[in-house]
């Protein structure tokens, strides 16, 4: 409520700053163009980088304002620093384009956001005191539909002025957002750049995921080979020996059958552990929230799980988040020895699944240290998910997983 009011009151100020930045943008863009022309005579080599730097500063300030208006925009710049590199960069020419085009299409919106409340202030607060002097000096006092010629008409203009202020403040933020959305198209990376970046990410995460998958299959194969498969071979041997001994030594045969039964139990145990590591039963039965509750019950830590998921995300997402949470719990148990309680919350808003794991341990966890977090990162990256670690020294440690996904209600 207060924040909303503040946003409305400051909208004209932000509009003014936006317009000043437009002016600065045009000047900086002209500077870039002039210095680029000077490249031919050589001075440009030294003039272009600072000019582009200035233009980028102005554009960055404009981006900050765009974000303030609630529109997301990314910085499109690459690593280039040389004059030629900067002049070749698509982003430089897009910035120049922004500097010239943005004021043409957007100025009216910001101007209106400033002018309406300002005009209202004049009518409601200033005019009652100045109209007489103005009239004496030969000027005409009119305020909207009202022609001010007397105290009565001056007073009548006050509510009109107040209404104008209210209307101006009311439409201010949406006007700024409107302009910001146009500016964002010019200030953000071009479609081509955005797609290039996207392809790069996809190639990377695809390679990671293929590698992880191959490693996982190899682990399963090894576990089966050394575990259940070996037990079943032993079981078969016990049974065939028992078959042979049934007549001559029933007691020995009996012992072999008992051994076979035990071997089958152990094989089952190993298969169970294996399946739990591939796709845990509760996850299959009930979905993410209950699977994490089951994890919590299996943990020796005191784990509190809270979830307000309206349904179930797709199976791969569920599985990735489940194993990430599993890893985080194991990390807490292993590293934060003094941690006693862990809180896990699952929440879904605006198409993003958020899982936050907080412990009361000593903190100071280094996200760059250890393969656990890296593993979680690449697990989630396949779904454009992210991991954020906040672990100040002396705690608490808070890890936030975010995965954009759809949820089907159950």
């Amino acid at each position: 409520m207060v924040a909303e009011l503040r946003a409305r009151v400051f909208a004209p100020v932000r509009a003014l700053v936006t317009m000043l930045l437009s002016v600065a943008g045009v000047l900086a863009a002209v500077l870039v163009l002039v210095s680029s022309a000077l490249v031919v005579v050589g001075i440009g080599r030294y003039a272009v980088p600072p000019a582009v730097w200035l233009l980028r500063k102005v554009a960055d300030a404009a981006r900050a304002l765009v974000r303030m208006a609630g529109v997301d925009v990314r910085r499109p710049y690459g690593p280039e620093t040389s004059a030629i590199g900067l002049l070749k960069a698509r982003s430089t020419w897009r910035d120049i384009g922004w500097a010239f085009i943005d004021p043409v299409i957007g100025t009216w919106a910001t101007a209106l956001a400033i002018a309406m409340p300002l005009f209202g202030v004049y009518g409601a607060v200033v005019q009652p005191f100045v109209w007489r002097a103005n009239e004496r000096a030969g000027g005409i006092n009119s305020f909207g539909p009202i022609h001010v010629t007397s105290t009565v008409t001056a007073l009548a203009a006050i509510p009109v002025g107040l209404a104008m202020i209210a209307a101006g403040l009311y439409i201010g933020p949406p006007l700024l957002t409107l302009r910001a959305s146009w500016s964002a198209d010019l200030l953000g990376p071009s479609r081509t750049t955005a797609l290039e970046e996207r392809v790069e990410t996809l190639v990377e995460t695809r390679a990671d995921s293929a590698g992880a998958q191959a490693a996982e299959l190899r682990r399963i194969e090894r576990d089966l080979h050394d575990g259940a498969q070996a037990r079943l071979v032993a079981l078969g041997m016990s049974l065939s020996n028992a078959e042979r001994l049934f007549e001559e030594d029933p007691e020995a045969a009996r012992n072999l059958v008992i051994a076979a039964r035990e071997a089958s139990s152990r094989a089952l145990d190993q298969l169970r552990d294996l399946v739990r590591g591939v796709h845990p039963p509760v996850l299959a039965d009930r979905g993410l929230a209950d699977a994490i509750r089951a994890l919590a019950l299996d943990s020796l830590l005191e784990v509190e799980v809270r979830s307000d998921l309206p349904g179930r995300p797709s199976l791969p997402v569920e599985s990735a988040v489940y194993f990430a949470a599993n890893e985080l719990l194991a990390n807490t148990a292993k590293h934060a020895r003094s941690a006693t309680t862990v809180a896990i919350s699952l929440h879904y808003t605006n198409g993003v699944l958020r899982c936050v794991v907080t412990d009361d341990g000593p903190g100071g966890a280094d996200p760059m240290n250890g393969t656990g977090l890296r593993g979680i990162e690449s697990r989630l990256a396949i779904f454009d998910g992210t991991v954020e670690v906040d672990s100040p020294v002396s705690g608490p440690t808070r890890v936030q997983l975010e995965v954009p996904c759809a949820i089907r209600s159950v």
Partner: protein
Amino acid sequence: MRDPIRVVVAEDLFLLRDGLVRTLTEHGFTVVAAVGTGPSLRKAIVDEQPDIAVVDVRLPPSFTDEGLQVAIEARRQRPGFPVLVLSQYVEQLYARELLADGNGSVGYLLKDRVFNTDQFVEAVRSVAGGGTAMDPQVVAKLLSRGDARGRTADLTPRERDVLELMAAGRSNAAIGQQLRLSVSAVTKHIASIFGKLDLPASDDDNRRVLAVLAYLNR
């Protein structure tokens, strides 16, 4: 002679279902229905009004925890309706849900326990008679949680052994036999455990087991 205990069996694997029916029949139970899906289990419980249902957690058509859901639902409609749940996996979460109503008459065992016929039959009898039969794996996890939280710190090693077997639902006689103690020694240990854990004493064995499980599940 007592009337035979009437059992409904729900298991989707034909071989295992057949084995269960055979084992139960051999040991004097009457299997009134042997079904393979969740809906048919629901119907059999209503139609046959059995003394106990032996249920596989995972059943078609959904192949999720359908058997467990039907069992819990049946217990909601008929509080204390004896249910013995069998599964390839034991999950603390499911054990907790089965125990949640505090009515007892529940069992939750790994499927391989069926191989040990005597113990399995004892479990079915005990659950049908209002007792509890929790899988040793469930109990072991409950106890290690209890240990981690210092809940069993005051117990002597012997008392902890007794607690473990008691939590699994074994009778005093069975506990004595396994630990080579006289029944009166077992009774004394149990009294001491209840004193140390500050649990309400009770003459009813089943109540005592439930109190122990609730304490560990806390």
